[in-house]
């Protein structure tokens, strides 16, 4: 039987479909800030996603060229406002490297303690928003309850809940208050129980696994070539953590493991961050032990002696208008979202000549068009949430 000549079931004259351009954002409940994604869809399948950033660009780097070194610290808070302490830390480390300032031990231990606590808070926020984007509303509130407790600790420490301005060139701005360590230990004991609940409700839930396993796979080569860092890189199978491999501050004396994922899919990125939360808890406890050690040494140290300056001080008072010799340095730390680099060029004087902030989320977002090609639009949201971007850091 032959078909009539004008009926063709072949692919040359199939159904005429058009591509459909959908604009997601910049105002959207789940784009994590002011991000605009222009998605070209073919039905439900994504042909191309083009991210448009820059809605939150506040010319932080230009401002840096006009501020004294100490005055710039609050600006770094506003870049990644979710883990602001880590932003502060990178900047003050960069200035300290160029100016050649060494910090006392107590300051370094407090820096690591607070940094890890902030990483924990940032990952809790990731957990909550990721759960919400995948459709589970309850973990969001449980995670924020715990994050609220951390923020309360930070408020009692430095008076601020989001933009801390706590780190200083030479140490930290003030020492830990009297009952702070006790409150932290109480909260840690409580959080360990809550963590188990948070883990159990999502991680191996069947619906969650179906939404996230095998979705948005970022291969090792792609991740390395595109400059992804942080949990995104580790989830793709690269065992690299700046705290261990290019160690800074007190990390060489602290014991922690680096979780590495297998497939580089959305579930792995989630899992790596959950494990990093556990490691952060362990690091916080080790820092508390170190602080106790330093405190025990304290009565035997003579106030004003060299050993006291080395161990017990929490900040080296540099002049409020710090003059730095000419020099340049690229200093990087492992922030919550990846490698945070500060490239500081100083030509002498009280203000930097140039400051460039290399944020992890900027490079992580650049890989989005690659991993979403050919996927469904419902996956796009899950993938975007798993990259854990903060537009303040991307746009600066």
């Amino acid at each position, binding site marked *: 039987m032959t078909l009539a000549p004008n009926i063709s079931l072949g692919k040359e004259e199939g159904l005429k479909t058009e591509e459909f351009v959908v604009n997601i954002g910049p105002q959207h409940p789940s784009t994590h800030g002011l991000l605009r994604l222009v998605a070209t869809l073919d039905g439900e399948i994504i042909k191309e996603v083009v991210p448009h950033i820059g809605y939150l660009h506040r010319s932080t780097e230009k401002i840096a060229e006009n501020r004294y070194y100490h005055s710039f610290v609050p600006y770094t808070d506003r870049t990644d406002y979710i883990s602001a302490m880590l932003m502060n830390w990178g900047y003050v480390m960069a200035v300290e490297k160029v100016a050649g300032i060494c910090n006392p031990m107590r300051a370094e231990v407090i820096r690591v303690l607070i940094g890890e606590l902030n990483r924990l808070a940032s990952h809790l926020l990731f957990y909550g928003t990721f759960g919400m984007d995948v459709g589970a509303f309850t973990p969001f509130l*449980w995670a924020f309850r715990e994050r609220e407790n951390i923020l309360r600790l930070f408020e009692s420490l430095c008076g601020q809940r989001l933009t801390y301005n706590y780190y200083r060139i030479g140490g930290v701005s003030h020492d830990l208050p009297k009952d702070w360590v006790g409150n932290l230990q109480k909260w840690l004991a409580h959080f360990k129980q809550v963590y188990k609940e948070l883990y159990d409700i999502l991680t191996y839930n069947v619906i969650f696994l179906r939404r996230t396993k095998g979705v948005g796979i970022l291969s090792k080569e792609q991740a390395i070539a595109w400059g992804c860092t942080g949990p995104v890189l580790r989830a793709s199978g690269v065992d690299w953590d700046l705290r261990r491999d290019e160690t800074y501050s007190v990390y060489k004396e602290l014991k922690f493991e680096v979780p590495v994922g297998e497939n580089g899919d959305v579930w792995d990125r989630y899992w790596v961050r959950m494990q990093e939360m556990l490691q952060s808890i362990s690091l916080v406890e080790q820092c508390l032990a170190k602080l106790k050690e330093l405190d025990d040494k304290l009565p035997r140290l003579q106030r004003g002696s060299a050993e006291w300056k080395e161990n017990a001080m929490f900040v080296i008072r540099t002049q409020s208008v710090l003059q730095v010799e000419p020099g340049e340095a690229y200093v990087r730390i492992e922030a919550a979202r990846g490698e945070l680099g500060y490239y500081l060029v100083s030509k002498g004087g009280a203000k930097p000549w140039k400051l460039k902030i290399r944020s992890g989320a900027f490079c992580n977002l650049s890989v989005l068009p690659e991993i979403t090609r050919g996927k469904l639009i419902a996956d796009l949201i899950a993938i975007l949430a798993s990259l854990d971007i903060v537009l303040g850091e991307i746009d600066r």
Partner: protein
Amino acid sequence: MTLDALLALNRWDGGLAYFLATGTLNIDPINVHLTLPWLHLPIVLAWVISMFVMSGIVTSLVSVNVMALVWLERKISGLIQNRMGPMMVGIIKPKGWATKHHSFWKWMSVWFGGWLQTLADGVKLLLKEDIIPTNADKWVFISAPILTFTACIMGYAVIPFTPNFPVLKDLNIGFLFIFAAGSYTAVSILMAGWSSNNKYSLLGGMRSAAQIISYELPLVLSLIGVVMMAGSLKMEDLVNWQRTVGAHHGHWFILYQPIGFLIFVISAVAETNRPPFDLPEAESELVSGFNTEYSGFRFSVFFLSEFASMFGACALAATLFLGGWSGPGSENGFIAFLWFLAKTYCMVLIFMWIRWTFPRLRVDQLMAFGWKILTPAALINVLWTGVEIALVKAHGYQHQYLYIWIPILLYCLLGIFVAKPKPRGDFSILQETS
């Protein structure tokens, strides 16, 4: 109509006191005509008036319940999420001598506080500006929410709230009527999505229509087993079967059709667009899907119709699987109604619990689940019910538990071999204390 009711109609109050006392309100038009000839009411008018009265009662009952459900949803979600839910509008505060029982009133205010919240929200939505997008298809846009609500509420006509009070009591195909009326929502949601002139709404409307028609099949198939065992499509018969038939004066269908119950609950959650199947209204993906462009009262009609259909699905589950209005003391119509409400609210709480625990299914996974897993399971259930009925006809109800528990055992065995046990996390690091 019973003899007492007939005689009561001749009283000076037209039998109003009798009806209130017994909770019956069914007025059979032919008998009315025969007993009150001096009114010379045409039969149709009498019947129409009685229908209007009963429909009015049902609609108001549903509306009040829906208001309560909205409040309950917010309260339950809050309590699951470690917070308290609405507390401000409708404060529970003791006065006078009661103030000394402080902890009791605190407990009351957590569990029942904010009970007027829906009223406040309704007033707020009523006062909002009514926006119709410029290029929207105006009449389709206006009629979509009305049609959705109508489709939902038509199904209530046959649900037996009390022994004498489904509105269409003697409808032989009552069971089929609900699904016929409710399947109209697919069309009206598509109308809403299309007429909004918005790509997001269109995507949401299409997804929703696809989802609804996919899950209608397992929904109805799962109930075929119930109908086969009861032998009738009349809702009254289905409830009476659960009261009287069976070895010990009635067993609820949930014992005889556990698989059917599970499939029904899952399909009902999908039919009413509730999470974990709420992709058409997924807030984080499509900003509210097909109701993006609706504001003010039109949005509240959609919102209420979603809750009305959820309440209807729960009422149906309670009627068909949990025994409806039956229970100790349910000869009195009022107590029967209380039993009905209690069972329906049990199901409602289960629906809400599911909603706030699970993430959302992606649309292709949703469709695959409906077509590839639920429909075959429902068909197998029908097959097994047939086998069961044949065995019961041959041997009576003595070994009935075998017929119930064998399929459950088989499913468990299948599950153990197919599903892998969940790995636990490694929490050892949390035990180290410094």
